[in-house]
């Protein structure tokens, strides 16, 4: 961490990418986040909710990596562990600094962690809950700059104005409070705040799912533009497959705390290898009335992560399940180059993808 710029003047300027620029920007290895279940007078631990159970992935520089799944699958928990809003139970989170030095985020002491957060920022789902209603835009967007001693006075004012302009807001509104803004505008404010310290990596946790349809498109385009303009890398968490398809380069599908399939977006949509991915694709309502409305519907509900089924977690809902699925947990194996799936029959099943 000695290389992190500490003087106020150079903290906000572009980092010098002195390293080779090769390899992944972020690597997550065997990440586990188990929440204890406590019961009784003595609050004894009677079990664990395995919210994230042995998740590994890597995010290449300048790409958008998607995490998709239904509620309770652990996608947001993974995102929070990555920027250490939650301290993971086990596993490694390795971030590559601009000079190629790897940093283990899970092992950072509080002081280094604070430095680290200049590189990694997060944008939350609900723009109504993630902005302090008692602070003005200038205070919200300027807060990271003030805390990190980057700028003050007129300098701060100018930087906030510039940030607001970059996300498409008018700098004259700097002294207003969040309640004066619509959902889409608030999400722009969140993005401006995340960009204040010139991060290289942004965790976007369902950034558009609370927004109106016509505003979603604006924010998705903005996220794409900012990526090009600042060379950002994103971990993009979403439940909407159409949004994932639009913005991500590669995707991991999660189910009950585990990654069940991981590959490039194109490959995942064209040729899914896991029955759950097939079901997810099949379940999306398609805005085309001429398409056949009757189709296969997945039965049952997402299992309770405190008490997952035996064997393959998906077997009770899987149309292709056989005896082995009930008994043996399938490994996440590579079935095609760069295409991993956690299914005993990934090689044999002919699953339905989309023609894209």
């Amino acid at each position: 961490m000695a290389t992190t710029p500490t003087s106020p003047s150079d903290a906000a300027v572009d980092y010098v990418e002195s390293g080779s620029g090769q390899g992944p920007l972020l690597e997550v290895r065997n990440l586990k986040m188990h929440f204890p279940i406590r019961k009784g007078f003595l609050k004894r631990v009677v079990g664990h909710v395995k919210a994230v159970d042995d998740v590994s992935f890597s995010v290449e520089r300048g790409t958008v990596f998607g995490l998709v799944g239904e509620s309770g699958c652990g996608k947001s928990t993974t995102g929070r562990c990555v920027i250490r809003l939650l301290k993971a139970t086990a596993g490694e989170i390795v971030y590559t600094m601009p000079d190629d030095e790897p940093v283990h985020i899970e092992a950072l002491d509080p002081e280094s962690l604070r430095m680290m957060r200049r590189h990694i920022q997060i944008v939350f789902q609900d723009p109504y809950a993630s902005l302090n209603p008692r602070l003005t835009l200038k205070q919200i967007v300027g807060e990271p700059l003030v805390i990190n001693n980057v700028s003050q006075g007129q300098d701060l004012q100018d930087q906030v104005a510039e940030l607001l302009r970059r996300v498409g807001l008018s700098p004259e509104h700097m002294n207003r409070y969040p309640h004066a803004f619509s959902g889409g505008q608030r999400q722009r404010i969140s993005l401006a705040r995340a960009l204040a310290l010139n991060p290289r990596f942004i965790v976007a946790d369902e950034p558009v799912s609370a927004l109106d349809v016509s505003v979603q498109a604006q924010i998705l385009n903005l996220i794409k533009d900012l990526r090009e303009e600042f060379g950002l890398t994103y971990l993009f968490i979403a439940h909407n497959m159409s949004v994932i398809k639009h913005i991500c380069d590669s995707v991991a599908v999660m189910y009950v705390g585990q990654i069940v399939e991981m590959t490039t977006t194109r490959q995942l949509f064209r040729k899914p290898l896991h029955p759950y991915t097939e079901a997810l694709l099949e379940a999306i309502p398609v805005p085309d009335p001429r398409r056949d409305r009757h189709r296969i519907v997945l039965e049952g509900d997402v299992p309770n992560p405190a008490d997952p089924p035996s064997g393959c977690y998906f077997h009770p809902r899987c149309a292709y399940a056989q005896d082995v699925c009930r008994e043996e947990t399938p490994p996440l194996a590579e079935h095609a180059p760069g295409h991993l799936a956690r299914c005993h029959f990934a090689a044999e099943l002919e699953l339905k993808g989309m023609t894209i």
Partner: protein
Amino acid sequence: MADRAETILEVRNLHTHFHTESGVVRALEGVDFTLNRGQVLGVVGESGCGKSVTAQCIMNMVPSRGRIVDGSVIYHQRNGQGTEAIEITALPPKSREMRRIRGNEIAMIFQEPMTSLDPLYTVGNQLLEAINLHQDVDRTEARTLAIHSLDRVQLPEPERVFASYPHQLSGGQRQRVMIAIALSCNPTLLIADEPTTALDVTTQAQILSLMRDLQDETHMSIIFITHDLGVVAEMCDEVAVMYLGKVVEQTDIDTTFYSPRHPYTQALLRSIPRLDDDQDRRLEVIAGSVPDPSSIPSGCRFHPRCPEFLTGVCEQREPVLVQVDEGHQVRCHLYDETASSQPGTQP
């Protein structure tokens, strides 16, 4: 399916205002649509467009600060041979007649099943309440009916669900319970207000498929309120698009998606991310955002965001609903011949 063109519900020029401390909020300012018996009408729009208030007006359940100031909702009730037109908006909300219509004739399901079920009562209790209020049956019959309606919404082990409390069920199961309660008295019209918005995709697919099956079975009419155009395409026969308290376009489902006329409908369709998109395509965007209902633009309410805005016309005069084709109404100056042919309106 025999009586194709028989109207079941007419909403005419509905205006509903809310009197709040910060002034009058004009939530509905001209909602018109017709629903035919046995059809599924989608009411689409973004937040704040008045879709839920429309549903409340049809049920005659406008919250106390709100008032229906103009327009009418007419329900055509079948009795014996013919039909009888009942003007719902003329009935007092708490009258015996209105209570009979709610539940027996028109039922409703809401977006968030957790907040519409009472956590202190079992599912069975809440189902029996609806049945006992609306049907003249004894206790054992009521129980049989209740179990049957749980079975009808494809809940596994209906007996167990009957004895459960809402928190013991998953989101999808709760929404099934809501549907069971709504359908327990065999209504002819069902209003579904965003019934799948709070659910996961695979659960949403289950609920949509269930509602399709039930509609096939009972031929009930459904008003399906949603913001999701994908859901509309899957469920509806007709679509009414709303923007800021007005219906801006109503037509059949195919026309809505393949040849919409109103610039708002067109823009909305272009702005949604689609699965069959080219990945590098930039999404087309509707400029700006939905204005606050307390500061509504003059003239056509969509004009500040409209790509086809005509200076001198759109910001000055309110467009009226015009018929552009059979069964296709649009509220836009582009299609209003009287507006564009008038001398001096265009610079």
